[in-house]
């Protein structure tokens, strides 16, 4: 049972730092850009000490201009570098939306592969940390809808590092979402050095035959809590942690739903246009005749993420998830 790989016990955000460090070490072309990522090490310390280690021209404190430095990152990527860009909070990615969806995600197709954008955009997302408004958005769907960029989101330190390295090695742009609510809430054994967690593959966090629960990122602990609670009542849930939001692992979903016939999807984002509906479409397309109940989605409401005085009401809770599980069981 011994392994040659050294492990460290790290929080999720430390695992990200470790992943960045590993890749800065490994590839000279890796270059970090973002607000406050240098001396300050990032507002969440995700780039802690990396500027000291790799210099001001590889870990760059940019001016406060998301469109500008994402655009500049595209120029660097096209010209041989591997930029990893930190957007301080996902809600501040909107000014860079044009650069991302008209260039990062279209350059390969526009030039039939002549110019490519091997870039990673990291962004903490989600509510639940009592942050001011706009700091709490969970708007993966505005990226998963736009072809040409992959979107991933880990829920634990091990996956965080491995997925990040996979994203950096991916030849296409990847949006790497970081569940800030889990940044320091869990510690995990994380192998030293380089390893990857495959983009496009989900993982089962629990096996069960009655209901399929699908979630990712910061919703995983909520879903696990609900799954454990209903287990006491004899309901066995299968919990799928998506990890990749585009392209979603449709095979694992189909396999699970064809077994259970009942599905609950949980996400923080708004219901309308949320990934819950994409997952429903996968089920519709692959497992229509296996469905024993409508697919339930437990989501953030179709309202802007409210000020934090209201956020406990806004976010999906184990309570709401349990209610949905019971609903699909009773149907």
């Amino acid at each position, binding site marked *: 049972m011994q392994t040659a790989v050294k492990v460290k016990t790290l929080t999720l955000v430390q695992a990200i730092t470790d992943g960045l460090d590993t890749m800065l070490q490994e590839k000279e072309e890796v270059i970090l850009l973002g607000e406050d990522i240098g*001396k*300050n090490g990032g507002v969440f310390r995700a780039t802690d000490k990396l500027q000291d280690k790799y210099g001001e021209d590889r870990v760059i*404190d940019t001016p*406060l201009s998301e469109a500008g430095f994402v655009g500049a990152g595209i120029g660097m990527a096209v010209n041989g570098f591997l930029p990893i860009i930190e957007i301080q909070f996902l809600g501040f990615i909107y000014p860079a939306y044009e650069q991302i969806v008209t260039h990062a995600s279209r350059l390969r197709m526009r030039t039939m592969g002549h110019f490519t954008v091997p870039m990673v955009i990291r962004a903490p997302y989600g509510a639940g940390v009592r942050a001011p408004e*706009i700091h709490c958005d969970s708007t993966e769907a505005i990226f998963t809808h736009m072809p040409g960029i992959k979107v991933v989101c880990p829920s634990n330190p091990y996956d965080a590092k491995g997925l990040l390295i996979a994203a950096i090695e991916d030849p296409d742009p990847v949006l790497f979402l970081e569940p800030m609510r889990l940044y320091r809430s869990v510690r995990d054994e994380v192998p030293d050095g380089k390893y990857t967690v495959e983009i496009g593959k989900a993982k089962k966090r629990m096996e069960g035959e009655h209901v399929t629960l699908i979630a990712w990122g910061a919703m995983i602990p909520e879903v696990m809590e609900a799954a454990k609670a209903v287990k006491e009542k004899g309901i066995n849930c299968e919990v799928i942690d998506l990890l990749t939001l585009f392209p979603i692992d449709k095979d694992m979903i189909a396999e699970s739903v064809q077994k259970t016939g009942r599905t609950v999807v949980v996400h923080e984002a708004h219901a309308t246009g949320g990934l819950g509906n994409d997952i429903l479409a996968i089920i519709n397309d692959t497992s229509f005749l296996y469905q024993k109940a409508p697919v339930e989605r437990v989501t953030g409401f179709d*309202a802007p993420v409210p000020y934090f*005085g*209201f956020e406990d*009401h*806004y976010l999906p809770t184990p309570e709401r998830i349990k209610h949905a599980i019971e609903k699909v069981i009773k149907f």
Partner: protein
Amino acid sequence: MMENQFPIRQIIDVNGKIALPEYKEKMTAELAKKFYKQMIRIRTFDRKAISLQRQGRIGTYAPFEGQEAAQVGSAMALAEGDWMFPTYRDHGAAIVFGHSLSKVLLFWNGRNEGCIPPKGKNIFPPGIPIATQIPHAAGAAYAERKRGSTSAAIAYFGDGATSEGDFHEGVNFASVMRAPVVFFNQNNQFAISVPISKQMNSKTIAQKALAYDIPGIRIDGNDVFTAYFETLQALERARNGGGPTLIEAVTWRYGAHTTSDDPAKYRDQVENVKRREEDDPIIRVERWLKNEGLYDESWATTVKEEAITEVEEAVKEMEAFPKADPADIFDHVFAEPTWQIAKQKKEYFDLIGGEI
């Protein structure tokens, strides 16, 4: 070079001595005392807010200590009916312009109620996405001009904000439309941890006005008199159809970016202490008052006590405020809820049994 073209204007110096004697006459005792009072008032508020945050009684808070002269001077220059577009660090200015202290605390406690200004006060909610309020101010100002009023708008923003496209687009729009707006920049020389030298290649922010052919003025942001008189003059020009002005108030924040920030990571703490010792904007006006023989210990004590009382009252009010009603998540998305919202509200209230 540009520093010479845009010298820092100063009416009183750090020692509270007059630097531009031509202003002397306008610098009445009443005005100076009002400045002092407002500065004490908002500093008291600011310090209290930090301590509330430490005690977990409000959320993350963005302090402005050190920037009181800029905020008080500029806000006092506004007239009834003008529009204010503050950022998360300009609640000092908002309070001076008439915002309610308890509402401001509510904002920092994660309550939308904190965004509602008192009746008749055109104060926008604090801008969170950097620089986005700048085009709003241009538009609101244009609206005043269009309807023939003489009201104007002021937009606050930091040094870091000047890097955003919205700064450029907003100022350009205002310059073309001759919108009556003052772009009031508080250059506290850092955007969180990023010093101005990494934010821009220019040595001043005032010089950015040249790109739009509008007046650009660089002032000592720790001199409340300059902040007041220059804002007043820019507003006057705006009201008279002279279009926008960019004012750069050079200042410094003594504290952290927000209560979640640790400035020791990126800023020389010794320099910080020195700055505070040498150039506290409140001390400066206090020195002026003393030099002019207008300072009176018991008056100052009263001012401070009144400020404490007012702030304590506001804290009480904030804490007595009814707790967040989840209905408010659903009830203000649209004038009339869409079916999605109505359904989600019903389901949620059914689940929590109508209880909050």
